[in-house]
């Protein structure tokens, strides 16, 4: 893996999240019935941060849940490195809520498909919206994001790596190339 460019730095990640928080509040007209659900692993941290941004803006704490979609994947048998199954931690009833699903990178759309199935098994939300830090294109399913931090056109042999301070050394988005 060769590092090609840094697309977002710490400040850019923070500004993107703050803008997305504003957009979520604008579209949902506040925090009424609003919940954030992050997709493990990095989506969960981004959801937590969006909760912080919304708190700063509206002085309201919206519930945050964590979704593990391993059991809903359609490519489980294709993955060389088996993912470890983690727990889904959604402590609130999602029925009739406005759910904002949060993930780091939107790519083929298969993760989102799996997440939608997983959410539907937990209840019947009023709406499900999608927020991602990076949209890199190459969709294989009819999925689009409602809130996007940055659109980054990529080639298929490139990889987008989102690093977050909770897990990695710093906040940044890197593009790398195979070979």
């Amino acid at each position, binding site marked *: 893996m060769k590092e090609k460019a840094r697309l977002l730095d710490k400040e850019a990640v923070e500004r993107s999240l703050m803008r997305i928080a504003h957009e979520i509040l604008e579209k949902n007209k506040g925090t009424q019935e609003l919940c954030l659900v992050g997709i493990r692993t990095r989506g969960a941290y981004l959801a937590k941060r969006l909760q912080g941004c919304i708190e700063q803006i509206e002085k309201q704490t919206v519930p945050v849940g964590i979704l593990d979609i391993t059991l809903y994947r359609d490519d489980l048998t294709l993955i060389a490195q088996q993912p470890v199954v983690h727990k889904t931690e959604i402590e609130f009833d999602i029925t009739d809520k406005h759910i904002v699903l949060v993930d780091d990178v939107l790519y083929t759309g298969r*993760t989102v498909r799996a997440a939608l199935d997983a959410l539907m098994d937990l209840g019947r939300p009023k709406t499900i919206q999608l927020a991602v830090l990076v949209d890199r294109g190459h969709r294989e399913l009819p999925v689009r994001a409602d809130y996007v931090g940055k659109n980054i056109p990529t080639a298929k042999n490139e990889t987008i790596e989102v690093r977050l301070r909770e897990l990695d050394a710093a906040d940044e988005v890197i593009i790398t190339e195979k070979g």
Partner: protein
Amino acid sequence: MASWGRKDLLGLEELSREEIELLLATAESFKEVSSRDIKKVPALRGKTVVNLFYEPSTRTRVSFEVAAKRLSADVINIAVETSSVRKGETLIDTGKNIQALKADIVVMRHNHSGAAVILARHLDISVVNAGDGWHEHPTQALLDMFTLKEKLGRIEGLRVSIVGDIAHSRVARSNIWGLLKLGAQVTVCAPKMLIPVGFEQTGVRVTCDIGEALKDADAVNVLRMQFERDGESAFPTQMEYFRNFGITKERLAKAKKDIIVMHPGPLNRGIEIASDVADGRNSVILEQVTNGIAVRMAVLFLVAQARDGNNNEHTD
């Protein structure tokens, strides 16, 4: 964390500590599924699980069946009394026929030690040992350890006593392997004739004094006295066993206040355990049953995944 690469689960003896910990951690994630309104995930959709039982078993078979169904697998139960085994078919032939049906996992209970190992060697599909003779019953030991960990927060350093027919118990053997690997101290307690000679060499403490086994123990795993297994019993009478080894309120009163009482079931009330203890505050017997489903879901999921794993790239 370690990854799982085995297509079969045959026993705990062959597993590393990391593999056992991965199984327990995966089971923890699956426990949440059973608490939902819709108790089902699509992880094994399109897979077929065959329960092949050469010995009568209700709870283990039902537990595996529930686990497979909560993973969306299709389940077929073969009870040997009604199968062509009675017409003389060998174990390996039966297994190959199940494989030819394109089943993905065979869960087998067999009265001969080593049967699961033999079957696994002859089949490409996954084999899960649901108890073979006196050898191993890995999922029972895993659910016992899962329950211990859930109740006490750890396995390392715990003192666990296993009371009952140690000589003939696969549950005891699997528990001993697992507990020792995870760093617990194990004591076994039984009438002398029910403990194999030289059993100390496995690394457990051996005693014939029930008071000694309960003293300082964090948990006691009470095995069922299998009076039906020997024809003529290895032990004089059920009453005598209860008098000398039965887990009673009086005996527990001298143990740690929060000692955990486990039993793999089915219970013989008044033989190995008193009724008021089985239903009492220290008992986690029904929680073991609940946890058994999560543990078996984890096992089925991991062996299926290991068998399917090939080299395609993880894309998203």
